[in-house]
């Protein structure tokens, strides 16, 4: 496979994690501009684990995602009382705080005569586990997509359970959800932590593919994009963010069709979709239409094809 294609596909896969992270919160009705913080936290944490502490990639990935999930848990508490715009601003402030902390974060040790570790705004170089262990770019891409498939299966499974129904219920009418017995706090914290974990997986993959990370990568634009991907692809299914990322990175950025104007086209696309399909291409209505068509085609699968299958 062509190296450029592998790189593009790998980028699509990695960025889909952060888009899925924003999507989980969008399901519960919260707009987060701060998912890049968990992406960054995991990138640094997993990089430190493999490059400085000598951990294996998988352990480093688990550690990075875990630290990001814990950070999300810590963020969930102070932001719980915030809703709508205030929550969005709260998450943005948190993400900027994290980025600025990494700007001054120094933690280096000498390995084979070379200083390795985060070095403030210079970034963190030498996260070379993948190359030192002879994992090819193609193999790494397969790892990315295996993990992405696992996360998507997890999200599809969640959508068919009580938790998924409650997430969507909170997203559509929080007051109604509460009046039907939903503990809002509990489920919002759960969604925030799941979102943090998913962004964390993406962050760890990102750090090991690029071999270095620096704070400016995790700026607000990454958060805005991750949010926009879900809104472009659609909020009716977890495939929506993947479609959004594929459109932006796969079509606009990689084909270089709109060189210099990519952000103009991307912004225009977001604006047009927000007017005509405010919940994205594969919104709930589109998913319902697909399901109905499927149900008509295969009546015997009626019970299985609905989110309301028995637990």
């Amino acid at each position, binding site marked *: 496979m062509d190296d450029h294609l592998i790189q593009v596909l790998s980028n699509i896969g990695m960025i889909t994690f952060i888009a899925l992270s924003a999507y989980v919160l969008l399901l519960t009705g919260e707009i987060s501009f701060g998912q890049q913080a968990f992406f960054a936290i995991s990138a640094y944490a997993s990089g430190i684990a493999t490059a400085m502490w000598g951990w294996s990639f998988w352990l480093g990935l688990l550690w990075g995602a875990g630290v990001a999930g814990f950070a999300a848990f810590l963020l969930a508490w102070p932001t719980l009382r915030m809703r709508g715009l205030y929550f969005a601003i709260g998450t943005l402030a948190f993400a900027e705080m994290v980025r600025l902390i990494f700007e001054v974060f120094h933690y280096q040790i000498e390995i084979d005569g070379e200083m390795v570790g985060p070095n403030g705004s210079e970034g963190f170089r030498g996260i070379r586990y993948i190359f030192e262990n002879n994992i090819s770019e193609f193999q790494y891409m397969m790892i990315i997509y295996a993990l992405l498939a696992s996360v998507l299966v997890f999200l599809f499974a969640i959508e068919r359970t009580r938790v998924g129904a409650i997430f*969507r219920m909170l997203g559509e009418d929080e007051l*109604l959800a509460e*009046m*039907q017995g939903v*503990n809002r706090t509990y489920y919002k914290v759960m969604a925030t932590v799941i979102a943090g974990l998913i962004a964390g997986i993406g962050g760890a993959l990102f750090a090991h593919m690029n071999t270095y990370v620096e704070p400016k990568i995790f700026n607000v634009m990454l958060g805005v994009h991750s949010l926009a991907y879900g809104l472009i692809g659609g909020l009716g299914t977890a495939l929506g963010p993947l479609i959004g990322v594929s459109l932006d990175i796969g079509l606009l950025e990689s084909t270089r069709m709109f060189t210099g104007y990519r952000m103009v086209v991307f912004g225009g696309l977001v604006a047009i979709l927000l007017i005509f399909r405010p919940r994205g291409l594969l919104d*709930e209505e589109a998913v319902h239409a697909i399901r109905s068509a499927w149900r008509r085609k295969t009546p015997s699968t009626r019970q299985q094809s609905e989110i309301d299958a028995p637990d």
Partner: protein
Amino acid sequence: MLQIDSVSRSFAGVVALRDVSLTVAQGEVVGLIGPNGSGKTTLFNVITGLFPADHGRIRFNGRELSGLRPDQIVACGLARTFQTPRILHRMTVRENMVCAAYAGSPLVQRLGSCAQSRLDDLLRECGLDGRAHDLAKNLTLPEQRRLELVRTLVADPKLILLDEPAGGMTPAETKDKATLIRDLAAKGRTCIIIEHKIDMISSLCQRICVLNFGKVIADGTTVDVLRDEAVLEAYLGPQEAG
């Protein structure tokens, strides 16, 4: 079953409820009426924990509700509908029911496949079985109100608070809705109904409580309350009432 003792609630100095006391016994169907802005919906909001009361106590089946979250109050066996029907528009009718089952009723969750058939039965009883797989946003207003009502039954509540269940409906639709509520009452469910349609209220309720400017001005049998001078004055003004 429900005891409301001297409950008050103000919003930025405007008194919405003033020392409201009301007792509802098991199996009773009580009408809560009053002119617009008299505090009826605020009382429902205070009972269900959306707004805390400034003063007073609310007890339900002997349990103090003050200080509980709305979901904890619902878990005690209360359910409510809203003045403007609140349904999950982006979901199908059946998904609305499933969400109600998932949200608040551990019993329904444990029932598994039996619960699925129970949801189908409930939809059939209220005539929505034919629309089970339609998006809720495509329902007509009476259908939305029916869905809202039948959804409250999923959790098998002991007390149902109905906020203008026939609001915006034609006389024929109102009659259908009254029949549906009468069936509920016949099955022993306790209800408090806010409604402006006096015919409907008088046909459904044995007892009526009247609020005006946040204060209870009458509480008694339907016949007595509808003849009460203070009630007539509240609705018609002093001269017309006289």
